[in-house]
């Protein structure tokens, strides 16, 4: 869910309407998008679950009413705009949610708000005012990145560090410093000498710092395990990251089923064509 339409009633600030609307659209809204329906863009695509009109099931309304005034209590030599003026910075926390219809009851315990209230939208000076009504709609990340609930998603292969010849004593301690904490562990072997052992290769960042030092060049091999993947999913705050993962799995299965149906239909048409 993200801000899609901005009804600008009054904007005497410096930032243009369209630039500010663009910024408003990118603000993440903390609400579970699964509780809402898509809004049909045109009459042809409307369906039972997809209204073309604004209903309380497909639109969230926010109000942004800010006026910047001079701070009469400011000291004469204050320089910072936060001291001299009131409301000089418009932050995302100033968006007020306006419950419509059933939204007031459904979201009573968990009111709809922005994920982060510190996002700076624009700056104002005295006697400048913004008065706007913002409508949020549901969408997917493919259409515009503002609707994507994921900040970054990446994967890497598990690093595999193999020690070819034993590394002992002071060399072992130096070896430990060349890797991030926790990767190399120093153990005392039967003779009482410190030996380096690989403890947790997951934490290794593959920086290859080891290979910069000539003495370790032949003793160590840095490779990756080809079938062990480590995934990283970062959420923008709308949904917890583990929920994002499960929803993504569901979507992938849905898409597979779609293709399967299509393939089955294609098969019957091909068979008819061949006859």
């Amino acid at each position, binding site marked *: 869910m993200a801000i899609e339409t901005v009804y600008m009633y009054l904007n005497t600030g410096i930032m243009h309407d369209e630039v500010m609307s663009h910024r408003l659209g990118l603000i993440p809204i903390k609400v579970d998008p699964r509780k809402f329906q898509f809004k049909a863009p045109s009459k042809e695509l409307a369906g039972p679950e997809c209204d073309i009109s604004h209903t309380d099931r497909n639109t969230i309304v926010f109000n942004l009413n800010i006026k910047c005034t001079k701070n009469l209590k400011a000291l004469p030599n204050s320089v910072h705009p936060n001291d001299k003026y009131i409301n000089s910075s418009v932050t995302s926390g100033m968006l007020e949610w306006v419950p419509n219809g059933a939204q007031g009851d459904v979201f009573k315990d968990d009111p709809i708000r922005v994920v982060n209230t510190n996002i700076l939208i624009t700056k104002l000076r005295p006697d400048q005012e913004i008065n706007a009504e913002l409508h949020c709609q549901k969408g997917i990340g493919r259409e515009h990145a503002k609707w994507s609930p994921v900040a970054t998603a990446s994967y890497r292969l598990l690093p595999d560090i193999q020690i070819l010849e034993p590394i002992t004593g002071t060399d072992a301690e130096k070896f430990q410093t060349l890797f991030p904490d926790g990767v190399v562990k120093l153990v005392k072997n039967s003779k009482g000498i410190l030996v380096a052992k690989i403890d947790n290769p997951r934490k290794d960042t593959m920086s290859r710092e080891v290979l910069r030092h000539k003495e370790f060049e032949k003793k160590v091999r840095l490779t990756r395990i080809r079938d062990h993947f480590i995934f990283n999913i970062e959420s923008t705050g709308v949904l917890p990251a*583990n929920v994002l993962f*499960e929803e993504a*799995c569901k979507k*992938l299965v849905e898409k597979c089923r779609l293709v*399967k149906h299509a*393939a089955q239909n294609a098969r019957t048409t*091909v068979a008819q064509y061949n006859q």
Partner: protein
Amino acid sequence: PNVDFCGYSLPHPSESKMHMRIQTDGTVSAVDVLNKGLDDLIELVNHIRNIFHQRSEEGNFEVEEGAEFVLEELDDLMDE
């Protein structure tokens, strides 16, 4: 094992179309291969989801400060 060639390409990134080519050695039909591949993929994803859910329930991990971890019900994996 029975598949000689399998690949896909996107003729143009702006268009939502994809060309996929499956070539078998004749013992099975290409459409069967496609169906089997999709079935396997569905099974794989469901398996990952189940294991992920199980491990989340066990709680053998750390949640960093400021992060959330909400365990939701695993709804039925629909079968056709």
